[in-house]
């Protein structure tokens, strides 16, 4: 019976209800729904995300850069519900094609946006209001190390004690260890009763977040966890052209060091940054995972009509 959908019709009806609730939420707040292309000329530069290609074109791994061009053009607050594609990502929480909810609020910082994400989750999932803790305090509490200063050796020692060190442990950088310990040790315990925000990340996990110069310096990034699963990732957005170019250059070098194909940076996006991206905060939320929580599903496959089959 392989022609039949994987998700039950009941879950598919739930998906439709959640989509409607999200659109109502944004309509009531005057956030404009937009669409940006799924197919484009630029791939993702992030060394740990691989684009799917179609000839010379790339399927988008996220609508982020196109939406920032809309912000630079003066769109005001915008949201989008779209498909995104990432090569090779398949598992109980990943499907190579997935649905993303992404939105931007000019004038917001990451705390103001966390407030809004919190309200959305309360409304859409009927959840309680969220808890909030800095990455530094959280890491110290669960792992016993300060993530802003811990070195590779200290992180590896802890990982070995909890049985989480991979075979090729010597190849891992500080950011890899932080991500691994977060994903394997901390994440399963987060947000069991109510949604949980982690914010202000170590600089090595900055991605596209703005840095705040204090001691230690932090990246104004946040993630949302609920029922032991990462649901969303957001930033007080980087708007500085020079800093953005430097981060693309870091990506390029790391891709080269890892022996990955070179990816050209997104020219029109850099032009938009030069023209001026308003100070804003943005967040991407995995819609399929939201449905997983609403449906109490343990695999993403059970909330997709037709998940991509593994060969």
């Amino acid at each position, binding site marked *: 019976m392989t022609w039949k959908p994987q998700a039950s019709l009941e879950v598919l009806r739930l998906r439709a209800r959640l989509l409607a609730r999200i659109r109502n939420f944004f309509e009531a707040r005057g956030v404009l729904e937009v669409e940006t292309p799924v197919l484009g000329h630029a791939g993702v530069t992030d060394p*740990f995300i691989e684009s799917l290609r179609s000839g010379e074109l790339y399927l988008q791994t996220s609508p982020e850069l196109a939406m920032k061009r809309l912000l630079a053009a003066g769109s005001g607050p915008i949201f989008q519900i779209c498909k995104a594609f990432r090569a090779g990502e398949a598992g109980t929480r990943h499907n190579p094609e997935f649905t993303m909810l992404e939105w931007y609020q000019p004038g917001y910082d990451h705390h103001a946006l966390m407030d809004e994400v919190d309200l959305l989750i309360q409304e859409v999932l009927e959840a309680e209001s969220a808890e909030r803790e800095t990455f530094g305090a959280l890491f110290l509490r669960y792992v016993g190390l300060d993530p802003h200063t811990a070195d590779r050796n200290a992180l590896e020692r802890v990982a070995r004690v909890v049985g989480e060190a991979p075979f090729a442990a010597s190849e891992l950088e500080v*950011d*890899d260890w932080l991500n691994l310990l977060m994903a394997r040790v901390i994440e399963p315990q987060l947000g069991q009763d109510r949604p949980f925000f982690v914010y202000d990340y170590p600089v090595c996990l900055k991605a596209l977040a703005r840095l705040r110069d204090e001691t230690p310096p932090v990246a104004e990034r946040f993630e949302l966890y609920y029922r032991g699963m990462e649901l969303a990732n957001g930033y007080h957005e980087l708007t500085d052209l020079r800093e953005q170019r430097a981060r693309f250059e870091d990506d390029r070098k790391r891709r080269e060091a890892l022996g990955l194909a070179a990816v050209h940076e997104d020219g029109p996006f850099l032009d938009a940054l030069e023209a001026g991206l308003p100070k804003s905060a943005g967040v991407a939320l995995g819609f399929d995972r939201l449905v997983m929580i609403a449906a109490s599903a343990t695999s993403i496959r059970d909330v997709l009509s037709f998940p991509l089959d593994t060969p």
Partner: protein
Amino acid sequence: MASSYGINQLRTGLKILVDNAPCVIIDLDLVKPGKGQAFTRVKFRNLKTGRMLEKTVKSGESIEGADVLETEMQYLYSDGEFWHYMDPNSYEQYQADAAAVGDASKWLKEEMQCSVTLYNNVIIQVTPPMFVELEVIETEPGIRGDTAGTGGKTAKLETGTVVRVPLFVQLGEKLKLDTRTGEYVGRVKV
């Protein structure tokens, strides 16, 4: 020599070498933060000890394959220390030690076909057939008419193994037994 596998070549059922021990992959899952290095969580069973273990592997790593072969062999005899088997195709003989035979020894009878796991051409595991037929060599006299099989008694089989059987089972009868549970299934009509 077995080859090595890249992370995206890993599949359940694949035999791999972990800390020099042959293992079989039971389950795989992707661990991938939105931003950052992808890892794969591999759940595997040690083929020698049966222990279930888990390991995180980084994308780009490779894992050594284990030269493991599963095949059918005929059980010949035991000399008290080793259990001897023959490959019915090559007539080549193999010996298995007590660790490899394990609980299978309770059911082994000459000429029985067993599935064996070979690692580097040495038997590391023996699995008896799911059902075996063995003769009763010792039991209390059967009670005729008690076909309901209520209550029960013990019976010693020709392999020396003692099992619980219904009261009507007679000395000299052949019984069908489930080797996975060690339970009596029925009498074999001769």
